[in-house]
């Protein structure tokens, strides 16, 4: 019985060595390839997430820098960034502000168009979810006019809206109005500041943004009754749902997508509107 079993075992034939070698070689190549693809995908995702986190900090710096250069003609500043999968761009004419000042003699509208600066990265590299929105700076969601001497002149937010000129996750710096109310003797003064961004060139020789304050203009109206601020979104897709300006507190949204606020001011008030032209060059300086 025992000898039969031993004989039977000996007679069993395995696969040919050549076949076994081919199978093992194939399996190893498949394993190594799978490991490489997995590691590469994981690395890409990690690097892209790092790019996105850095971009949030970078755009916050850009927003603060806008305030620094806008009110000094000729002031030039460069901010550098570092990104593997993302880049920055300027979208000219993304926001149209109309400030209408009304006094006893009638209404005077002042219209200004400004661009926005945005960092963008394809969602194939990094995605959170469609319709994602996160306010970055300042921490609370802003409306287009903000009171106080320390109020920002640009808001920074991250947004993923697909499709919108491609499929990207963006970090955006968008100009808003700073309003400083003050009283001197019995007269109320309303001073408004709005930077207007426009693309000056994009040589793209480096990963940087150069901001330059070009000019400042001032418009003054006396004996005011009211100030109306209207925001239009001229570029399709880059609308209120993209910027997510906080409504309420006097802001109304109309069916054409425009949003507007009527500021009731003290009778006989004076308004001064400062606008600054800021040119933005992409990759002009290291």
């Amino acid at each position: 019985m025992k000898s039969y079993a031993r004989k039977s075992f000996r007679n069993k034939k395995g696969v040919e060595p050549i076949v076994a070698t081919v199978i093992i070689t194939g399996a190893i190549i498949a394993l190594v390839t799978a490991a490489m693809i997995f590691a590469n995908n994981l690395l890409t995702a990690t690097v892209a997430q790092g790019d996105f986190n850095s971009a949030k900090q970078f755009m916050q710096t850009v927003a603060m820098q806008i305030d620094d250069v806008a009110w000094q003609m000729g002031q030039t500043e460069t901010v550098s960034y570092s990104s593997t999968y993302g880049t920055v761009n300027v979208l000219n004419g993304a926001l149209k502000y109309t400030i209408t000042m009304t006094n006893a003699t009638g209404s005077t509208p002042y219209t200004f168009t400004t661009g926005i600066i945005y960092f963008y990265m394809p969602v194939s590299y990094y995605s959170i979810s469609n319709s994602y929105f996160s306010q970055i700076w300042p921490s609370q969601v802003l409306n287009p006019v903000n009171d106080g001497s320390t109020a920002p002149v640009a808001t920074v937010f991250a947004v993923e809206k697909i499709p919108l000129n491609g499929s990207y996750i963006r970090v955006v710096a968008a100009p808003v109005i700073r309003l400083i109310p003050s009283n001197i003797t019995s007269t109320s003064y309303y001073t408004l500041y709005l930077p207007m961004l426009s693309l000056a060139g994009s040589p793209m020789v480096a990963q940087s943004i150069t901001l330059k304050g070009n000019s400042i203009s001032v418009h003054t109206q006396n004996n005011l009754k009211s100030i109306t601020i209207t925001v239009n979104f001229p570029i399709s897709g880059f609308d209120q749902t993209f910027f997510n300006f906080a409504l309420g507190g006097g802001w109304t949204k109309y069916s054409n997508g425009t949003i507007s606020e009527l500021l009731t001011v003290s009778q006989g008030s004076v308004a001064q509107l400062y606008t600054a032209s800021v040119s933005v060059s992409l990759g002009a300086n290291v």
Partner: protein
Amino acid sequence: MSHVGIEYAILLPILVLQIIVLPLSVSWIMSVWTNDRMKSEIQEAANQVTNTIKQLYLALENSEILPTSNPIIQTLGLPTTIESHLYYATGQQSGNSAINFHFTLQGTGITTNSSAIFGSSIHWQSSEFFSNSSSACIKAWKYSNNTISLSFG
């Protein structure tokens, strides 16, 4: 019989080689991947430090911020280690208005640089940042001549 002998003579070394090649390949891939990830993370930390310093400078530059004898302290919120490695940074003022930062990940040979351009009123105090320091921060002083002095805490 000799045919089988030749097969074994050729195929056995190949199999043995594969036993060596597989761990080596995986080890190499993981090493490349880990290094790249560490480079990415140290670069992200460098960007965060540079941007935080720049933002602190821009906030202090505002004329409404008065000079102060006590330093303004900004924490950085960076991880203590990157892939279990400590890291440190040094800053060096270049010319009147630029500061270059050099980051080193200890024990890996990985380094990275970042730089920021400030106004002419900047002054960098020679200092080092250590990731494991419990008091790691940025310190800033605004002097009466509007010079802004910065250092690692």
